[in-house]
């Protein structure tokens, strides 16, 4: 399932593989610093493991698991690649 | 893990279902007793009217039930539920065993008067035999190919 449509990470269904495309326009520096340090930069490939929307979402980045609040997840735009 | 035979999945599924029913049964007994109906005669082991304990039994039952449903359909993740079911059963079973030992200590070592009427049967609750009964699940689980990490 390849798509060019961008969607917020928060809405991605469980089990999907996505690529980070951009951040929402109104994000602050604190957000950017945090997110880049974790590897959630444009081009990064992530797997969505659990999505308790409107709750937290669990991700697998290169074999490493974290979970983020939907606040952050809403501001990361991704496209689904699998 | 496609090489795990269907027959085995179904067997484990049935075993899981049986455990699920048993846990559910005893959990309901605890809760109905808590609600005020004396159903203790239905049980070979001691039942307190402990709603929380009943809750934990029901939860365990649900885990095993999920295991049954998934394994019956040959879905590999059923084993995850069986694994966690065994884990929770062990936690509850071992805990109760420790409680039994603790109270035994009160009665026979400390000679605590509050425990003068206590016998080990008082603390031999459903979770203990149920835990023993769930131990055979270790066999199919061990043979699963899985990485620790």
């Amino acid at each position, binding site marked *: 399932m390849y798509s060019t449509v961008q969607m917020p990470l928060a809405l991605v269904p469980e089990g999907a593989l996505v690529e980070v495309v951009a951040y929402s326009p109104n994000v602050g520096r604190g957000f950017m610093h945090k997110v880049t*340090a974790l*590897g959630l930069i444009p081009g990064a490939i992530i797997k969505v493991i*659990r999505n*308790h929307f409107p709750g*937290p979402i669990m991700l697998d980045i290169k*074999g490493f*698991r974290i979970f983020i609040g939907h606040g952050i997840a809403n501001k990361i735009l991704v496209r689904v690649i699998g | 893990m496609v090489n795990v035979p269907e027959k085995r999945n179904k067997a484990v599924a049935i075993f899981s279902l049986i455990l699920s029913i048993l846990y559910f049964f005893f959990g309901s007994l605890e809760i109905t007793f808590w609600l005020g109906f004396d159903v203790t005669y239905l049980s070979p082991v001691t039942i307190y009217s402990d709603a929380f304990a009943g809750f934990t039994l029901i939860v365990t039952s649900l885990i095993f039930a999920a295991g049954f449903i998934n394994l019956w359909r040959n879905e590999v993740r059923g084993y995850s539920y069986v694994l966690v079911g065994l884990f929770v059963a062990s936690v*509850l079973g071992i*805990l109760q065993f420790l*409680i039994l030992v603790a109270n035994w200590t009160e009665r026979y070592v400390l000679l605590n008067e509050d425990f003068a009427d206590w016998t080990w049967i008082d603390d031999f609750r459903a979770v203990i035999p149920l835990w023993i009964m769930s131990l055979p699940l270790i066999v199919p689980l061990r043979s699963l190919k899985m990485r620790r990490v």
Partner: protein
Amino acid sequence: MMLRTVSPLKVKVALAGNPNVGKSVVFNNLTGARQHVGNWPGVTVEKKEGLCTFEDAKIEVVDLPGIYSLTANSIDEIIARNYIVEEAPDIVVDIVDASNLERNLYLTLQLLELGANVIILLNMMDLAEEKGFKIDTKKLEKLIGVPVVPSVAPKRIGMNELCQKIVETKKKSLTYKKIFKYSKDLEEGIERVRYVLEQYEELSKYNLRWLAIKLLEDDDEVKKLIVKSISNYNAIFSEVEKIKSELEKKYDDLIVAFADERYRIISQIVSQVVTKVQVEEPTLTSMLDEVFTHKYLGIPIFLTLMWAVFQFTFTVAAPISDLFDMIFSSLAEIASTNIKPTWLGSLIGEGIIGGLGFVFVFAPNIFFMFLALSILEDSGYLARAAFNMDKIMYKLGLHGKSFIPLLLGFGCNVPAIMSTRTIDNENDRLITILVNPLMSCSARLPVYVLFAGIFFSAYAGNVIFSMYLLGIVLAVLIALILRKTLFPGRPSYFVMEMPPYMVPTLRSIVVHTWERGSMFIKKAGTIIIAGLVAIWALSNIPYGAPIEESLVGQFGKLLEPIFAPFGWDWRIAVALFFGFIAKEIVIGSLAILYGTGEETLYGPISNALTPLSAYALMAFVLIYVPCIATVGIIKQETGSWKWTLFAIAYELILAYLVAGFIILIGHLIGLA
């Protein structure tokens, strides 16, 4: 033969790395028992320092907080940066998780940018192997330009080699400061900013390249530094702005641009150094997560495990508590009957030994609780629990990480508040601390049991449960109010690591449990003993007089009018006052004041109160003033008297209001 005294080689080493890479294990391996735990100056973050001797060298080790990068956004990062810049350690050991090389190297690159002298300790090699990675450490060394020491810290593999490397580096004064170049445009920008900064002598002691990069990234702390050091900082800032806007024509955002470059470099390195050998197989972690974070089963399973923890903490620890009780009771009796003069016997017996006994009786509970929690934490489960509860917490205006401290509060508020250290955002943390005492701690239970038993017999269980519920409801309300009034804004962005599940080592469990347990006992213990001795003193002066005429009695009479509208007499007022020292004491004091043993309080109390006033009293005990140990810990964790006093004040007021409200409603419904 000539005797030469050789002064030992002294090396100053800092340990850095991401959270959960095994830093504390390495620290413990190196320093053993010679550690000292304190605080970083001015903040409530823990600072661990220790000494390690290797061959003829004395290595001072400082454990920096676990961080993902060196931005200026969190206290932990700022502490780490400042330490490296100001204290200039000889070596910074960057502990890297070999099974997550790419993400860990991000910090490494930033450390190199900062100009630190880095040695990489490539830890968790066993985990990497299990994940199917083969890492060419020699090649990594070559590409990244700093020594790489592979290790498996829990098995002490690599520790000697690390120390050897450290000593060798210091002896030969080697420096490992590879500079990685970014893209042409960025490098140009960096050069231009550097040129501007070079003009200023005040900045010559800093690593200019790092300052330049940070200014381009809009780093707050560096900006503050410039303002502080240079009088006409505006000149610098305007130049930097010019350079930035030119760069921004090519790159949307410089922060992302730099991050991108770093990851590009890292990817290149990692692709040449790591080969993946095994095929993807389901992992234990993913199997467990499937169930533990299940949408519907996740929380019930969590509740089940929590129930087990509480049962374990109370029922299984009981024999040990009872044992201490017996020992200390008999000791107390022996003392009071055999030591002359009688007042001294009473002081030592009932006062001091009684006080000590009291602490020892609840110590097993505390240790068991910490034991269970250490297991949950070290195994990795707690992160999943936080994940499950996050949604609910957010709705309450709280941080997901607030959940565990609030849960612990049901056992004892002191360790609960101590555990708020994991919450980074100050506001979230403060709210969690302030609301914590409303979680009905185990000390209040005896009070509920006594009063509920006397006045509500058949319904006692439900009445007690209603108290816990009341506590939770009030906590939620107060949290919401605090959030709206004093701490506006939503809970901070929430990110939490989920380490792979592992069976915790016996050693780490024991160490954690002992650390926390003994710290608690020391603090709470001393306070409670002091308090009990004080009570003993006040109720026995003048010695031999009936209780009403002792200091305590007179004090009670003073307090009586405050509580008269609730129908509580002076004895209750005094007991409540002493409850400030420790809630457990309320019952004991009532016993002393009524002149009976605790078993026969039934009579006097059923005469002194009505069911309504008893219920109001229970609510009052739930809410008013945290015990003195808790007050102490609030002061320690918040670092300010302002919030501590605020906590005491709002709880007193709230308690009074709620009790009054209960009495009022009661009268209106005609329950008086």
